[in-house]
């Protein structure tokens, strides 16, 4: 089992969702986050006071999958989120020790899908 964490551009969320559904990945958690990588943030001005390096709005996806779904999920995220410009985001894949479905108390791979 793996936990896939992806940071993407907010305006690509719809495409990424569409691609994930196509790849049969239906269980995702989405949150709004702030951050920046190489883009070094944006400049904002309030009553003339300039603030540089402000954090940029991003979307974080969390998807837990079984091994055979790892590549399809990564491909789907890349297909949906890639524009070719700085700021497209990153995908992190982490080992997942355990997964419990609260309703049934099932554990492991069966609990994921």
């Amino acid at each position, binding site marked *: 089992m793996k936990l896939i964490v992806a940071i993407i551009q907010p305006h690509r969320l*719809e*495409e990424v969702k569409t691609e994930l559904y196509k790849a049969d990945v239906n269980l995702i958690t989405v949150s709004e986050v*702030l951050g920046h990588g190489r883009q070094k943030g944006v400049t*904002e001005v*309030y009553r003339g006071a300039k603030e540089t390096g402000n954090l940029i709005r991003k979307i974080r996806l969390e998807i837990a999958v079984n091994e055979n779904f790892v590549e399809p999920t990564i491909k789907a995220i890349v297909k949906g989120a890639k524009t070719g410009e700085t700021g497209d985001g990153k995908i992190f894949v982490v080992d997942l020790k355990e997964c419990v479905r609260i309703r049934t108390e099932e554990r492991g791979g069966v609990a994921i899908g």
Partner: protein
Amino acid sequence: MNGADTVFVLLSAALVMLMTPALAFFYGGIVRKKNILSLLMQCFIIFCLISIQWIVFGYSLSFAPSSGFWGGLKWLGLIGVGVKPCADYAGTIPHQAFMIFQSMFAVITPALIIGAFAERIKFSAFLFFTLLWATFVYDPLCHWVWGTGGWLKELGVLDFAGGIVVHTTAGVAALAAAILMGKRKRIDSYVPAPHNLPFVVLGAGLLWFGWFGFNAGSALAVNGIAVNAFITTNTAAAAAGLSWALLEWIRNGKPTVFGIVTGSVAGLATITPASGFVSPLSAIVIGILASVLCFIAVALIKPRFGYDDSLDVFGVHAVGGMLGTLATGLFASKLINAAGADGLFFGNPKQFLIQLIGVAVAALYAFLVTVIIYKLVDIFVGMRVSEKDEFIGLDLSQHRERAYTVIE
């Protein structure tokens, strides 16, 4: 000169003033949260810009006596517009009170249009577009319908508070602008949900409140016509809101908050030209008609043709304004307003024809000139932001501010 009338018109002007910020919240709540400031900013700067335009030359072009394309130039910079009443417009209040009351109409009309190109217009281009539009569309049409010597006025066109001058012109211009500008990027696959519906309700409520100044104030005196306009305004808005909610309940299974406020605003726009000429019972019929027709325009016609009039300016204001103007030709009665005329249902079919001519002229003129202005500004400045700026959102890309923080 009458003190009560003067107080009434000045307070009405203040009520209409409130409608532009109200519209900003009505619109701002519907867009995505990365764009709300751009809508608030556009409404606010229109207020500043057109207030000045009006004093310097807009009022003269609109209302100075003339039988030409514009009003005359003799009231440029308000020269000759003093505290003495101007009998042509309002014989019991200072001329300047009439002027400032009218300035609020000149402000909100171009502000209505911004719903059509919301979330994708370049701010600098928007300023040029607005100034040209106010000068070449609003001012002449205002003169034709309301100004001394205006040819539609001479023809007998009835427009109590701006069904033609405000709502038809702005709504049709919005359609032209939406078609020329094209859709927002990536909205084919999903329609973005309004980011703050409570703001939309707040805006609609304040619009309704301000509309009492808009319509009742247009009587320009404390009299029975003002009271009638007040009642018909409230009645039509209520009938329209109620029937929109029922329509949704029947068609979609649930009545929505967004639906009832949209219906109410449609009812308000529709009763505007008729408010001083029709009875409260006619206002109920007009309100219901407003809901049905605007609902069809927004829910059926727009998707069929695929233009992205983002906030339904055409579907609500043009359809409402045109419908209300035609309805005036049906329901108007001299028993309500002796200075008006009888409509078709009161034995005068000619009035309906006159109303039809008024609407057709205004719609055609506004559409054509909006296209010309749009193209001109597009060539010199470029009307639309880059795709990247659109994705980032207009708040950050046009104003370097954001409305909401995520952390703290």
